[in-house]
């Protein structure tokens, strides 16, 4: 019987998952059959994809690839791996979006932000005390390396402007707008839509406070332009940005980016 074992073609006479595990590995290993982690001794069929991994140990590149392909299906995994996304602004939206895209297996991430990590960022942004004072680009690259070391991360520690925008974003298929300032959001939108009429842009607008999560939606507002958020709740004194709602909006943006990668243009 021919199976795929930890990412490689493998021939075996055993048809029980536990027999394969015990024969070639040891009984303490985790067994995953076609992307589904199981503690039952399921029957293995010809062509099945099996992962048998040591608990708590970093797998080799091929094994991790195979695990992700099994989880996400090989077709989705392969398409996501080939995608190239730029994240503009690495605050509450951008840092969380970049981490989600890394976990999803986006093969190339360009991270753009000029600023350093401050104590006031820790309430919602994906950084730790140990990152205080570091450039957000470097702090995030370090985290992504710990999540999936095989992702190609490119840091641009600069302020994105109407002038350098075209050069910095060239080479990415999907652009994620994750700035804090509404004027910068408008500038990026205007520039991307005029300079790169074929690229997709996914923006965030309105996610402050703790109003209902259900007000946050994804809308397609123009050809190639998507906006996530409630469109209203701006950050101001008395209505600050907080982790849950910012994360909900970041999730909307990351999922829209994933949908676009997979060729689905509906919000």
């Amino acid at each position, binding site marked *: 019987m021919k199976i795929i074992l930890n990412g490689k073609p493998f021939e075996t006479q055993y048809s029980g998952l536990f027999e394969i595990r015990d024969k070639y590995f040891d009984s303490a290993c985790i067994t995953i059959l076609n992307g589904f982690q199981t503690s039952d001794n399921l029957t293995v069929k010809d062509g099945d994809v099996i992962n048998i991994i040591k608990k708590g140990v970093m797998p080799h590149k091929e094994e991790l690839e195979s695990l992700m392909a099994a989880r996400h299906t090989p077709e989705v995994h392969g398409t996501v791996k080939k995608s190239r996304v730029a994240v503009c602004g690495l605050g509450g939206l951008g840092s969380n979006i970049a981490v989600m895209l890394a976990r999803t297996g986006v093969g190339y991430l360009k991270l753009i932000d000029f600023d350093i990590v401050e104590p006031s960022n820790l309430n919602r942004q994906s950084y730790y005390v140990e990152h205080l004072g570091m450039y957000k680009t470097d702090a995030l690259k370090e985290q992504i390396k710990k999540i999936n070391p095989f992702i190609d991360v490119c840091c641009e520690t600069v302020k994105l402007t109407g002038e350098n925008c075209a050069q910095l974003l060239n080479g990415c298929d999907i652009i994620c707008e994750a700035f804090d300032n509404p004027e910068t959001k*408008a500038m990026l939108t205007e520039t991307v*839509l005029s300079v790169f009429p074929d690229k997709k842009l996914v923006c965030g607008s309105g996610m402050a406070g703790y109003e209902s999560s259900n007000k946050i939606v994804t809308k397609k507002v123009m050809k190639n332009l998507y906006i996530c958020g409630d469109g209203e709740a701006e950050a101001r004194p008395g209505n600050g940005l907080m982790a849950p709602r910012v994360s909900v909006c970041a999730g909307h943006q990351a999922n829209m980016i994933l949908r676009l990668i997979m060729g689905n243009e509906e919000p």
Partner: protein
Amino acid sequence: MKINGKEIKIETATILSVVLEKQGFNLLKIAVMKNGDIIPKAEYDKTTVNDNDSLEVVSFVGGG
């Protein structure tokens, strides 16, 4: 003319920035498409709109 699908009456050809300000938009926090083409901010004062034009205006609020 139309702004985001809503019918707006204008008598004569009017400067884009005048139309947008009259509708209460903050010109720095928006992106504008006229008949499907993006209009850069620098062109707001030089672009005219007529009654048969259609504008899509996207407004942004702060926070991220």
